[in-house]
């Protein structure tokens, strides 16, 4: 089982969290011209790397905050957890 350290609540088991996907994906800026290619990149295309992966999780059965987790997709080791508005 994964143990995720919520930056708000501390170390909790995986059962309390739900996954939110790749955190490195940036939504195109509002009120600006967005090309089809940029939308395609944002909505569909993912690197899905082997190794370090920055991802979103929600502490759904806890403080309900979204957080960022830097995790290894091969070993499942968690290197770092951050608040949603923090950068690595």
């Amino acid at each position, binding site marked *: *089982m*994964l143990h995720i350290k919520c930056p708000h609540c501390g170390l909790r*088991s*995986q*059962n309390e969290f*739900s*996954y939110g*996907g*790749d955190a490195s994906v940036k939504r195109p800026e509002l009120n600006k011209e967005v090309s*089809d*290619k940029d939308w*395609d*990149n944002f*909505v*569909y*295309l*993912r*690197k*899905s*790397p*082997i190794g370090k*992966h920055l*991802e979103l999780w929600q502490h759904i059965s806890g403080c309900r905050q979204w957080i960022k987790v830097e*995790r290894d*997709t*091969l*070993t*499942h080791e968690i290197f770092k957890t951050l608040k949603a508005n923090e950068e690595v």
Partner: protein
Amino acid sequence: MQKYSVFSLIKNAFKGHKDWEVAWKDPTPKSEYDVIIIGGGGHGLATAYYLAKEHNITKVAIIEKGWIGGGNVGRNTTIIRSNYMHDENGLFSEFGMDLWRNMSQDLNFNVMFSPRGIINLAHSDAQMNVYSRRGNSMRLNGIDAVLLNREEVRKIIPMADFSENVRFPIFGGLMQPSAGTARHDAVAWGYARQADSMGVDIIQNCEVTGFDVSNGKILGIRTSKGDIKAKKIGLCVAGSTNILAEKLNMTLPIETHLLQACVSEPIKPILDNVVTFGAGHFYCSQSDKGEMVMGGDLDGYNSYAQRGNLPTLQHVLTEGIAMFPFLSKLKMLRTWGGIMDMSMDGSPIIDKTHIDGLYLNCGWCYGGFKATPASGWTFAHTIAQDRPHKLNAGYSLNRFSTGHLIDEKGLGTKTWIS
């Protein structure tokens, strides 16, 4: 190639089974091939077989990092079906069903295809409506579908929970009687043996480390056993697709996720069909050895680990026990995991790429095993003719940017919940 039959069995029995030919050779790679298929799983082996059989292209190599059949073709729950609503998926899968029905004869290898029928259980009136719609769509495409009411389901699977006070009562189900199971390893071995006999080189324990691309054209691959030139290269690597795509500077609408499956201790025959729980994600069948073969949800986060975590297994088996209470009495024999190439609409990609001579076969999510023959057949066609067959025309790589998605479940791009 030595033909397998009752006569060859008797003949070899008299010789103490010492003279059987090897099923496939272990060649060293040549310096050049017409076609290289990367990935010696079911789809890659089938592709090589149909390239040789249907298109007379025999200067072919299969490059496999590990051993053939060691990935998802050896890790699945062996279910074969074509109960899809959308035309692209339905027609493609039903074409595959015809190949499954003849596979043992075609490959001269007993793949133990067992058309025992699949039942998707419904647990509400709304779900019965959805299933009747899907069943009608299937029948329009020539696929057999039968809508069963509660009593009809009870006759087929009386061991399911039909008591009154359950959280998800069984209202009925949708059955595809021609669906079933097959012996998964035999599929890989049967295709490998036939492909080898027609001249295909099966090269195992050989890792692809890079690609040789010049002026938008593929020239060859770099491997742990040296550089190999090829006019055409097909990628058939399922969960490892993104690893190779990165070496090609490609970003794909694919994420790699982990799926677990498990089998119980063997018990006497109780379940004749494949049954799926409709109020969650759980499916179950009984193997010829008597084990209950079970699977369900993805672990739910990007992973290349090929091994899972307990919370998901616990969740999946809770659903299983809600459907078949007797499962709670069984001991678990084995659990394992495989890595799935989850596409953004749940449907696969079999297409050309922007690189001339490079072809892509991926995005099978957790439905790759049943697609093995149809995938190999259409991918071989796409490579040989340099254009998709009409059966896989919908499985294009650019359908995401053009909006022609084939979203069977209507879940959108959250690959980890699909």
